[in-house]
Structures are given as structure tokens and as C-alpha cells.
């Protein structure tokens, strides 16, 4: 309210200042050339002073005086008689007054209401720091100031990390979780949160680093639903649909009936079982969500390469644990070639042949693939 009163006062003050000259009885205009005449008289005086001071010669002074004199005469001749004081143009002035009175509030309020934010108070930092209330940004800033001075305060980083996450400052969240884990060691919540931050940071992809953290979290707390969910999602993204389905089913089985994540989990189960039974479209390899795809499209080639590498690494790790996955080996070998890592591809072929000996059907297919791609399974003879 006070604001609008001040706005009104300001507008009125400006209006009065502008209206005053229109209210005054104006003196008549001097003739157009009277100023010129005055300037020339000044010049003549100046000339006389210069001559007295000996700054110019007599001859020059005469010449100059003659010239200024000519201009003076010309100006005097051109001068029309002084215009009579015009009758007070009351009507026209009234129009001008009206223009001013309308213009100021119309333009002022019209433009201000479209560009301004009348309700927003000033928020000097000192006042906000003194009385933060529920101002999250100030709480963050205070914590940051504290941690800038005490960077070894693990509990502080642990506290700050999820707040960063909630405020969309993902990079800061990753760094804060990382610090907290290094200072305080891992806990299921901390590791799970770290993994989640990593996943959001990489646009929804459950990277190898995230999987590592998730596995550590599960080791500390085998019933952590968040870790189970993201691990299952990771399996699905890698194309290990059967394993993903099993993992999601296990999660659904252990979750309470009213758990908020159940609908999402059930949706994944439904998708995976459809693809497993061959109904509908088979899930594309890696099963990136639409969000993943969008993120990948926006990535620079370098980023995309890094993302592929992350997925390949996690696939390799999984195959080491569970080598009985023929498709997995085929995909890994092809991926390494895409990444131009022939040696790793050859190693993968060798490892794959260990799981599926060359004598068997799958083994022969692997060997055929190796020949097709021009790689030799190093040490396959052993």
C-alpha cells in the first residue's frame, strides 16, 4: 500500500514540476536576432581588450573590427520588430496540461505494470543472512560460507548435498556427496544419493560409477529400495532384460503395498515382460528412455563417446560376473570396435569363448563374428 502511495506522490510531484511553467505568465519572446547582436557586441569588447593588451596589431584589430561591424549591421537590419507578447494561449496550454496529466500516469503505470514486479520487496543480503527464515538459497549460502572456511566438515557436506539436489544444482550435489563420502565414509543413503546425482548428471543413464556406488550402498543396506531400483534400471538400459525383470520383480515383492515408487516399478515390469514374451515391439538395445535419447542428442560427440564408454564398461563388468550371456558378449565386442579399441575387443572375444567354447553353436558364432570383424581371439588356442 505504502508503495502505491509513494508512486502516486512521485507522479504528482513530476506533474506539478512540469505544469508550473505552463501556469506562469510567460514574457514575450525577444526578437530572433537580439542574441546575435549581443554576441557581436561582446566580440567588439573582446577585440578592444586584446588590442589594449597588445595581443594583436593595430592593423589586425581594424580589420577585425570592420568585419564584426559588418555582421552587426547585418544582424540589426535583419531584425524584425519585437513580436508583441502573444495573447495567453489559455486553450492550447490547457491542452498541453491535459496531455501532461494524462501522459504521466498512463505511460508510467501502463509500462510499469507490464515490466515491474510491484509486490516484490527489496532483499538486501545482510538482512536475509540475519533472518533467513525458510529462504533455502540463504541457508545454502550460509552453509557454503561455513564450508568455505571449514572444508573438512563432512557432516556439512552431507547436509548440503541433498539440498543441492532438490534445487537442481546437480554438479554441486555430485561434488558435495563425493566430499561427504570421502570425509565420512559411505552409508547407504549417502552412496545412493551420490549415485542418483551421477545418474541425473548423465541425463538418466546409470553409469558404471553410479552402479559401483549403488552396489556399495546395497552391501551396506541390502533392502535399500532406491539402490535396487537404479540397479534394475541399469540392467534394463544395458539390454539385460531378463535380469532387469527379475530385479524389478524382487523390488516389487519386497516393497510395501503403498510405496510411492511401485507404479513406476510395475510399469517397468510390464514393459519388460511384454518384450520377454515377444509381444509388441521388442525393446531397443540399451532401452534408453526418451529423456536419455534427448540428452544424448544434445551431447557433444565427446560426451556421447563418454556415455557409450560408461555403458560399455558396466556391461564388461557384468559379463565378468555372469559370463553366461551370449548376446552380451556379442554386443561388447561390437561396442569395443565402435570405440576403436581392437585389443579390448579381441580380449572380449577370448573371454566370450571361455564361456561359450568354440565347439558349441554359440562359440562358432563368436568365432564367425571375430572373422567378420577382422579380429583374432588372442590366445584362443590355449
Amino acid at each position, binding site marked *: 500500500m505504502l508503495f502505491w502511495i509513494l508512486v502516486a506522490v512521485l507522479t504528482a510531484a513530476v506533474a506539478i514540476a512540469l505544469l508550473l511553467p505552463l501556469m506562469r505568465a510567460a514574457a514575450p519572446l*525577444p526578437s*530572433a536576432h537580439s*542574441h546575435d547582436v549581443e554576441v557581436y557586441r*561582446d566580440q567588439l569588447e573582446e577585440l578592444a581588450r586584446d588590442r589594449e593588451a597588445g595581443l594583436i596589431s593595430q592593423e589586425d584589430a581594424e580589420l577585425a573590427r570592420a568585419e564584426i561591424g559588418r555582421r552587426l549591421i547585418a544582424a540589426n537590419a535583419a531584425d524584425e520588430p519585437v513580436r508583441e507578447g502573444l495573447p495567453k494561449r489559455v486553450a*492550447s496550454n490547457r491542452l498541453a496540461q491535459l496531455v501532461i496529466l494524462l*501522459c504521466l500516469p498512463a*505511460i508510467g503505470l501502463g509500462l510499469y505494470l507490464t515490466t*515491474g514486479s*510491484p509486490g*516484490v520487496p527489496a532483499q538486501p543480503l545482510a538482512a536475509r543472512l540475519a533472518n533467513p527464515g525458510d529462504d533455502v538459497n540463504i541457508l545454502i549460502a550460509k552453509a557454503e560460507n561455513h564450508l568455505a572456511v571449514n572444508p573438512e566438515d563432512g557432516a556439512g557436506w552431507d547436509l548440503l548435498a541433498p539440498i543441492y539436489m532438490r534445487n537442481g544444482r546437480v554438479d554441486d550435489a555430485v561434488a558435495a556427496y563425493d566430499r561427504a563420502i570421502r570425509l565420512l565414509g559411505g552409508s547407504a543413503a549417502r552412496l545412493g544419493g551420490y549415485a542418483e546425482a551421477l545418474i541425473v548428471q548423465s541425463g538418466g543413464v546409470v553409469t558404471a560409477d553410479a552402479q559401483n556406488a549403488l552396489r556399495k550402498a546395497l552391501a551396506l543396506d541390502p533392502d535399500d529400495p532406491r539402490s535396487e531400483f537404479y540397479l534394475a534400471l541399469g540392467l534394463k538400459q544395458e539390454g539385460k532384460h531378463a535380469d532387469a525383470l527379475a530385479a524389478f520383480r524382487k523390488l516389487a515383492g519386497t516393497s510395501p503395498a503403498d510405496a510411492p515408487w511401485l507404479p513406476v516399478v510395475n510399469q517397468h515390469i510390464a514393459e519388460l515382460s511384454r518384450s520377454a514374451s515377444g509381444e509388441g515391439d521388442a525393446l531397443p538395445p540399451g532401452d534408453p528412455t526418451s529423456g536419455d535419447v534427448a540428452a544424448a542428442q544434445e551431447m557433444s560427440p565427446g560426451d556421447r563417446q563418454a556415455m557409450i564408454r560408461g555403458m560399455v564398461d558396466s556391461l564388461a563388468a557384468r559379463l565378468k560376473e555372469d559370463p553366461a550371456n551370449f548376446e552380451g558378449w556379442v554386443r561388447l565386442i561390437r561396442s569395443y570396435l565402435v570405440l576403436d579399441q581392437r585389443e579390448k575387443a579381441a580380449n572380449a572375444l577370448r573371454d566370450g569363448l571361455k564361456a561359450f567354447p568354440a565347439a558349441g553353436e554359440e562359440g562358432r558364432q563368436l568365432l564367425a563374428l571375430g572373422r567378420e570383424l577382422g579380429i583374432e581371439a588372442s590366445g584362443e588356442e590355449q
Partner: protein
Amino acid sequence: MIIELGHYALVLALATAIIQAALPVLGVRRGDRSLMDLASSAAIVSFLLVFFSFAVLTFAYVTSDFSVRNVWENSHSLKPLIYKVSGVWGNHEGSMLLWLLILVFFSMLVASFGRNLPDTLKANVLAVQAWISTAFTLFILLTSNPFARLVPAPGEGRDLNPVLQDIGLAIHPPLLYLGYVGFSVCFSFAIAALIEGRIDAAWARWVRPWTLAAWTALTAGIAMGSYWAYYELGWGGWWFWDPVENASFMPWLAGTALLHSALVMEKREALKIWTVLLAILTFSLSLLGTFLVRSGVLTSVHAFATDPTRGVFILAILVLFIGGAFALFALRASHLKAGGLFAPISREGALVLNNLILTTATATVLTGTLYPLVLEALTGDKISVGAPFFNITFGLLMLPLLFAVPFGPLLAWKRGDLAGAGQRLFAATAAGLLVAAVLYHAKNGGPILAPLGIGLGAYLILGAVTDLMLRSGIGKVAGRVAARRLAGLPRSAFGTALAHIGLGVTLIGIVAVTAYETETVVEMKPGMLAEAGGGYTLRFDGMREGRGPNYTEDSGHFTVSQGGVKVTEIWSSKRLYSARRMPTTEAGIRTFGLSQLYVSLGDEMAGGGIVVRIWWKPLILCIWGGALFMMTGGIVSLSDRRLRVGTPSRARKAPPLAVGAAE
């Protein structure tokens, strides 16, 4: 609330400017004095409103009010107070508000001190000023509003670009804008004259001091900017022919021409139409400079794509004002009465030569600056027009001008005596050649042109002194008479001499640095010695870590010795600003007389060494010292009592104070 009041005041300033732009012109048409007087009141009200608005923004910066988007984007709570204040104009929005503030400040000055101006001229001038301020206030409010809010407010700002966190930011932009925008007054006077279709005698007397004031500020602003770039960027250069530099240099060249033609006009009533054209041209170049720097066209032509509204808006302002002004000129210039006649060899003639060369030089710089932009826009080819182009074209153009400069003041008005002036300059010429010869002897083996360049500088300085000596009759009349006459000389004569001396001093600095500078790049480990040039030796003592309020720094310590004796020490550092994770170099600079030793740190190498760049810059301070001379000349000339406009008859009947008090 205070923030929003500042915002509202700016909007109200727009409404006032619109009134000031329209009603006084109507008043002039109708011969209605009260409507003309409205211009003065509106100009003062406008200034107060914009000033309040600017003060509010400054308050937001000082109190770190991050609910203002502009503050959040460009400030940081840990920044020292001076950078919080100067940070107000260290960004696009704030700098445009400063631009506007200076514009309305000048309008206010015309309104307050222009009591002696003919009423119609004053009303028209203020109206034209209001057209400009209307356009720029609209630009600010619609595309670059510094009062945009951010809810909820972030807890910390993003900090100011570290390169700008320097005392230079507090001085350089305000001075530069005083210069740029000061020329708007000359522009408004020119447009008012075209509207009225006549040029009063008072016109010339008014335009010259405004030109002088703007020119002095612009000289200071450019020199300050050059020195700032020199010590802050760590490249050791003082002028790069960078488009941003050219953007400020072009109005300076045109303004220098305007200054000289306004002189002819004031004294001789000649070159009237040309002066009007130059006034339009100078401010047009100021606008062009604002456009080039502010639209982002310079860093990349594609900046239009990133923020099309801003660039297009300024372009529209540019087209409107420059196009409109030239169209008006084409329509009305023939109505203006041409001025007096003069012989080719005369003071006027010399000033015309000055004008021709300066405008040609401006055109050269303009071509070199815009050509790459236009070419890229049309064909997509990226070329860069660099220092060699400017050095050759601009340098060759300046050469005859520099030779002619001392002749100008020595020639008589209307018809002069070239041989006589030549004779009188004989001593200066001989001394200049002597300086060149001595220098050539001393520095035998250096570039052959360098001693000649320095000799030319000496000739300029001595030529200016010759003028003062001749005028006061030193050597011809008794010493006491000469001293009295010297003291009695008009201040503008001293102003001229000082400015011309400054030109000579700057020239000497430029030539000396270009020809005799030495650069050494070495990888140094603690304890190592390096020849620094100028007979000095530098020993690297080691690095030290430190921290400032919002940065950390690594400083290298160097001991400077001459002939084995320690002379002084130098700290040179590299800083890392925490908020933007941005490094800067803080070069270590030591001054020896007029020369400087410049030490800049490069990358650290494996094995503990660090790359060190060492420059010996002989006489480099002359470059900016000359600018100081020019500024002093401008100020001295500005204080000349003879510049006051005669009081017209009406004011003599009623004391002028009464009019002033009513406003």
C-alpha cells in the same frame, strides 16, 4: 520496495522525456514561450528521476540484493565495495543506464546554464536531447531492464568478470561515456539549427565548449582505457586496433575535427554547414560505437541470433537518428547561410586541411572496422583487418597532418603567409632534425624511421612553444613586457599549445616504444637471472601463494638490479577468482623515469620453472602523458573567459537570476 520505486522512476522518466520531446517543439512552432520553458523543467525532472533510478540500482549492488537479476548476474557479496559500485556499469544493463544518466545530465546542464541561449534554440536542443533519451529509455526498459527481479532470490551472486575488477572500471567507462554522450549536445545543436533553418552567432559559441568538454572527457577515457588494457591484460600492448578501441577512436577523430571547425566557425563564421555536418557525424559515430559494443556484433556477427531484440533495437535507433539527421541535413542545409570567405593559405585553410585529413582518417578506421563485419555477414568469410592495415593507412594519413600542425596557429586568419610561418618555425624544425640526428647517432643501427619520428614529435612540441613565444614577443621585447604579454594571452592559446605539445609527446612515446621496445620470454627457476632490457637484470626469487577477498593468487618475486646493484623489486601474479573459476594476470610493472619494466607470468613448466615474459618499454609513459597534456589543454581552453555568450537585451532589463530561481 525501494527497488520497485527506482524502476517506476525510470518509467516516469520515459513519460517525462516523451513530453519533453513533443511539447517544446510545438511551442517553438506557435511562438508559445511557456511550452518552450517546459523543456527546461522537464530536462531537470528527467535528470532527477534517472539519477534516483541509478542510485537505487547502486544501492541494490552495495547491499547485494540478489532479488535483482542484474545484481545476481554481476555481483558477489564478498567483492570489495568499490567494485560493487563500479560493477553497476560493468554489465550491459547497468552501462546503458549510466549512458542514459549522462545524457540527461547534459540535458540538465543545457537547461540550467543555457539561460543566455535564444529561447527557440534552447527548446529545440532540449527536445532533440529528449528524442535521444526517449529512444534509449525505451531500449533499456524493453530489452535490457536492470530492474528485472528474481524470485526466489539466490543466496550468492555470480560475481563480476574478474578482468573488470579493477580501479579502471570505476574511471574508464564514465569518462568514455561523458565523451560519447557529450557529443549528443553538439548533435542536438546541429539538429536544432537545421530545424530552425538558421545558425545564430550564439550557436558557434555554445557548440565549441560542449565539443571541448566532450573531447576532453573522451581523450581521458580512451587514454585510461588504453592504460588499463596495458596493465591488466598482461600482453604488454597499449593499442591493438581492436574494433572496440576503434569504436571509441572514431568519434575522437571526428570530434577533433569538429573542435577545429567549430573554432573557425566561432571566430570567422565560416564553415557553418560543414560544422553542422561534423557535429552530426561525430555523434553518429558515438552511436555506432555504442551499437558495435552493446549489440554483441563485435565478438561475433551471430550475436544477433543470441539476443536479436537488443541488436535490432539499437540498430533501429541508429538508423532512425543517423538516417534522420542526414536526411534533415540534405533537406535543410541549403537554407543555412554560408559563411565568410578565406584564402587557401590562412588559419582557416590550415584548419580545413586538418578537417580533411581527420575525416579521411576516420573513414579509414571505419572501413577497417566494418569491412570484416560486412564481409562476414554477406559471404560468411572471416577475415581480420589487423594492425598492419591501420598502421600503414592511418600512419601515412597522419604524417602530413603532423607536419602541418605547428603551422596552423602561426598563420593569420583569412589570409596568411606560409613562407613567414615557415621561417618562424625554422628553429623548431632545425631542433627536431637535431634531435633525430643525435638519436640516430646514439642508437645507430636501429630502425631508420624511428629517430625521424621522434624528431617529428620534438618539432611538434617546439612548434607549439614557438607559437607562444612569438605571440608574447619573447626575444623581441624586454623580458618583463614579454612576461606580461604571455600572462595576458588568452587561455585558449595556451590550450592550443598544450594540446599540440601533447600530440608531440604521445608521438614520441609511440615511436620510442614501437622501435626500441625489447621483449624477452624465458623459462625461469628460482635464482635464475634474465636480461630485462634497458640495462636492467631480473632475478627470479620464487613464488608465494596468497588470497584476496574473492580470489587466490600465485605471486612471483623478482629482484631488479643494474650493474650488479639491487635497484628495486617486482611482484607479478596470476589470480584465480573463485566464483567464476577464471584466471587473470596481474603484471608486475616498475617505472623508471618515463620508461617501464613489465613482467608477466606465463605457464608453470614441469620441473619447477615458470615462463616469464619481460618487456622493456622505453618512454611508454609519454603515450598517456601526451593525453594528459591534451586533456589539460582542453580544460584550460574550456576555462577561457571569452567563451561566455553575451547576455541578450531582455535579460538585462530583468536580472537573469529571477529566471533561474523560478526554474
